[in-house]
């Protein structure tokens, strides 16, 4: 019983024992001289600690006045958070880009395979940039009354078409998602910008307040002097 209750002597001293354990402790203390002595010594330690000398502390009004002068604007902690976040943001952004490129290649391969299997019809040719003669070439041909239908012109138009659709399928997706990512970054920055601005202002404000207070004191002094 002694071994079981001995660790709880401090809890008993602090009034932190309740219920059955408290009853057990009181019963045990009535019979155990070792625990009685130890409890007396622990109580003595506590009493002596309470008698520890107290240093003269600054008056609260003076302390508050001094503290108010050095209090920065709120959001000071965000100043530290900004660069911290950037440390995460840059590698995360690069990682995101890498994932994006991988997924894009996979999607293109999937589209290509599906197109080869003939599941997408004309759409596959358009997505892969290999439409033999798209509608706009036919349109030009029709407008020019069939004069543009010479072999050289058709070849040129087909090359331009291949280049444009190739550009579209190979680059536009990436550029689109890249723009979404940059847009998100811009929104993030604009949302946080006021906090960054505030955090840089906090250094100036206490000084201004200090000067204002000092000038107020001077005015009061002059008034009293008059």
């Amino acid at each position, binding site marked *: 019983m002694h071994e079981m209750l001995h660790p709880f002597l401090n*809890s008993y001293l602090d009034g932190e024992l309740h219920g059955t354990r408290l009853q057990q402790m009181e019963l045990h203390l009535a019979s155990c001289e070792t625990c009685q002595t130890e409890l007396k010594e622990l109580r003595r330690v506590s009493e002596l600690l309470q008698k520890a000398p107290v240093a003269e*502390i600054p008056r609260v009004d003076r302390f508050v006045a001094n503290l108010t002068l050095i209090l920065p604007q709120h959001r000071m902690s965000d100043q530290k958070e900004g660069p911290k976040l950037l440390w995460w943001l840059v590698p995360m952004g690069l990682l995101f880009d890498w994932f994006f490129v991988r997924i894009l290649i996979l999607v293109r391969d999937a589209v290509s395979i599906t197109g080869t299997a003939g599941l997408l019809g004309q759409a596959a040719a358009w997505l892969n940039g290999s439409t033999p003669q798209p509608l706009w070439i036919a349109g030009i041909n029709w407008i020019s009354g069939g004069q543009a239908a010479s072999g050289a012109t058709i070849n040129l138009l087909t090359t331009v078409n291949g280049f444009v659709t190739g550009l579209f399928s190979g680059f536009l997706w990436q550029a689109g998602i890249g723009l979404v990512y940059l847009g998100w970054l811009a929104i993030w920055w604009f949302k946080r910008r006021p906090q960054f601005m505030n955090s840089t202002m906090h250094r100036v404000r206490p000084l201004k307040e200090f000067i204002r207070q000092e000038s107020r004191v001077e005015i009061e002094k002059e008034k009293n002097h008059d």
Partner: protein
Amino acid sequence: MRESRNAETEIALIERAQKGDRDAYGDLVRCYYTCVVSIVQHMCGDTHLAEDAAQEAFLRAWIKLPSFHPDSSLRNWLCRIAINAALDVLRRRTGNTSSKMEMQCLPDPSPNPEAALIEKEQVASLQLVMKSLPEASRSVLVLREYSGLSYEEIGAVLEIPIGTVMFRLNYARNRLRGLLAEQKVQQEQEYA
């Protein structure tokens, strides 16, 4: 009824201070000044360091105040900040051991001057041992002895389980008790 009104006032002050009202924060500092100063004084054991730590604690509290939830205990929150500030100030002190505690002893009610002297020595020794205690045990002891927090509150302040609070308190008090026992033996040997 009065307590709930005080709590409402405190919540209103916190909300105002969170919006940047310095006067409201000043009122909060006045409420908890004694509690925070008592913690940092007993943690640091040095008047000047304690002043620095108190200022740093209230400064940190102001900076972190926007993230404080008004429903949680401001006292516990401030106690935690005070403990951390005191420990940081102590860690920053680089070899400057010359600054001793410039304490003003309370008037001694004891009529026996010899007993008073012995007690004074015991208190001084206890304080020395207290300074040598591990930070974790000292924090628990200070919060219990000088802030009067319950074990549950100490656990909440230091974010540790109650079992750990008990263990650290047992360790700290037993170290101090051991010192008193040693002193008693020494005194007996001197008188013999």
